[in-house]
């Protein structure tokens, strides 16, 4: 159990700044995800923590002591790589034992520990298989067991699921989370998949272009993104230019019809804002044959349906521009393309960012 602090970690590759003064604290036993598109610096950050890269400047503290001078082989951090990192010439058991053997742990102890960990990741029956005899998901579970075998201070995962099929990905991320919580191990998890980050993390650090955009609990990141980047990267978001009319009222574009918002958004009345609306906060009602648009709603037309299972994603055109709404599939059936609809927005689902 250890606490990890990154203080002003800065990394330049020649002219390119990969990480700009990254500061992040990971509490003991916490799982923090580094989330961002490729090239945002999240993998570089992880590799610096692991010791595979040296930061240009900055401090990296494990339980308060600086580990920058410590070589990767002595940092005691277990790392799980993207894929194919298992030693191909060793069985699952030998892979898991490897770190312990390097630490000169007695043979029978290695065996017992490897058996225990492979049991933990559900591969007790596969101990004597070679990596090429295991599926991708099984390989990653062995890799997890191998990283845990050395009882690392910190567990590092570098997109461990990105090479796997969708279904396996979901199963395995739950398993990783389960193991992580059971062992209470401090974990840094790198991913570009926002759904993965939202589902697995205690906190998420969203990164872009080497900068930290926002750190927060998954629900917080989803519900109140601090920047436009976070809003667009995490989940699907409708975004409009708008103007604050009153503490609980905004208008969108050139439309006169106001939309209600919850107070406390911190934007001054009369100011220009970016109005962000989640698709699930858009409510639609069918307008039968020339019925008037009801109060508090504006008019729209259904363009297209995309069936996603329990919900149907609808593309709409409206007074204020195109938007996307997620509607329960059963309700969507009553609103085929070309239907005139009244569009309402749940005030709780509206988020304003000052422009």
């Amino acid at each position, binding site marked *: 159990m250890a606490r990890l602090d990154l203080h002003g970690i800065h990394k330049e*590759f020649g002219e390119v700044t990969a990480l700009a003064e990254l500061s992040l604290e990971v509490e003991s036993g916490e799982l923090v995800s580094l989330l961002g598109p490729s090239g945002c610096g999240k993998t570089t950050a992880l590799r610096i923590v692991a010791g595979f890269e040296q930061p240009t400047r900055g401090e990296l503290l494990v339980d308060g002591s600086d580990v920058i001078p410590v070589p990767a082989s002595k940092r005691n951090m277990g790392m799980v790589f993207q894929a194919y990192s298992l030693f191909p010439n060793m069985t699952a058991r030998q892979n898991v034992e490897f770190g312990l053997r390097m630490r000169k742990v007695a043979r029978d102890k290695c065996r017992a520990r490897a058996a225990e960990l492979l049991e933990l990741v559900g591969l007790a029956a596969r101990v004597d298989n070679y990596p090429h005899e295991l599926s991708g998901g099984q390989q990653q579970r062995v890799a997890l067991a191998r990283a845990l075998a050395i009882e690392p201070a910190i567990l590092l995962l570098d997109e461990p699921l990105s090479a796997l099929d969708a279904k396996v990905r979901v199963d395995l991320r739950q398993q990783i989370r389960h193991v992580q919580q059971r062992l209470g191990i401090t974990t840094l998890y790198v991913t570009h998949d926002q759904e993965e980050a939202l589902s697995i993390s205690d906190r998420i650090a969203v990164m872009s272009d080497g900068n930290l955009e926002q750190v927060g609990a998954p629900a917080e990141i989803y519900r109140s993104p601090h920047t436009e980047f976070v809003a667009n990267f995490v989940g699907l978001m409708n975004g409009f230019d708008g103007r604050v009319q009153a503490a609980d009222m905004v208008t969108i574009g050139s439309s006169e019809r106001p939309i209600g918002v919850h107070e406390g958004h911190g934007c001054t009345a009369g100011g220009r804002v970016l109005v962000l609306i989640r698709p699930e906060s858009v409510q639609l009602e069918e307008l039968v044959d020339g019925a008037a648009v009801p109060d508090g709603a504006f008019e729209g037309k259904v363009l297209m349906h995309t069936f996603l299972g329990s919900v149907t994603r609808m593309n709409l055109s409206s007074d204020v521009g195109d938007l996307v709404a997620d509607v329960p599939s059963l309700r969507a059936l009553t609103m085929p393309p070309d239907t005139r609809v009244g569009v309402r927005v749940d005030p709780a689902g509206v988020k304003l960012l000052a422009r």
Partner: protein
Amino acid sequence: MASVAAPAEKKARRAPREHRRPSFWTIFWLIMAALYFLIPLYSTLQFSLETGQHSYGFKWYGQTFADPMFRTSFLFSLRLAVETVIIGLVLMVPTVYWVHLRLPQLRPLMDVVSILPFVVPPVALVVGLSGVFNVLPWMLSNSQILAFIYVILALPFTYRSLDAGMRAINVKTLTEAAQSVGAPGWKTLLFVILPNIRTAMLSGAFLTLAIVMGEYTISSLLLFNTFAVYMYYIGNTEAQPAAALAIISFTLTWGAMMGLFLLSRRRGRGSSPGVTAVSR
């Protein structure tokens, strides 16, 4: 208006690696290799240019090019090379096409047959062939026979080039597409498949060229005066024209290989594997 969906990102690319200096051993081994490659070439070049104690010139090259036997043997080998390429392609292209299209189960057999020329070294092949020629002596009366034998020598390279080329274009789909618009089989091969495996055919042809132009074992043992036999004959009599010939021969090989390299470059697939001939 900014209605944006989350970027659907498939593969995360790794951040650029730090540019570390190449280590001492990297430089050491690369220089060793360069020296090993270049010193014999340099020595040969110097030798071929020496015309007196301390004078240099192109005398030996001039003498070589003026030798009528140089011309005859060179043209003879060149003719054999062209014949070998043609026979090889006419034999192999339809065969490989057919195997890809209709007899994929025959691929392992083709693979085995195509490496057999490695298993039977040229000198052993001559032993076997002379056993056959004892029964059919008329076969040896014409130098054309060499081209037919060289097809076997070049087989591994021709086959591998063509096989790789056809694998890359998905012959079956292309053929079915052509047939769906009504093209008969031979037209499909000629106008659909051939243009698409041009690179593979050319790379096979260049390798064949390199092999035939340098082939000594078979032609010398069957008593034909090919370019390599002429070269050996000159080497036995005069050392410096021989060096000039070696340089000419190297330039030829280099030319053929550069052609091959440029071809594979243009295709953007790096250089093709197994660019090695058997004229040892």
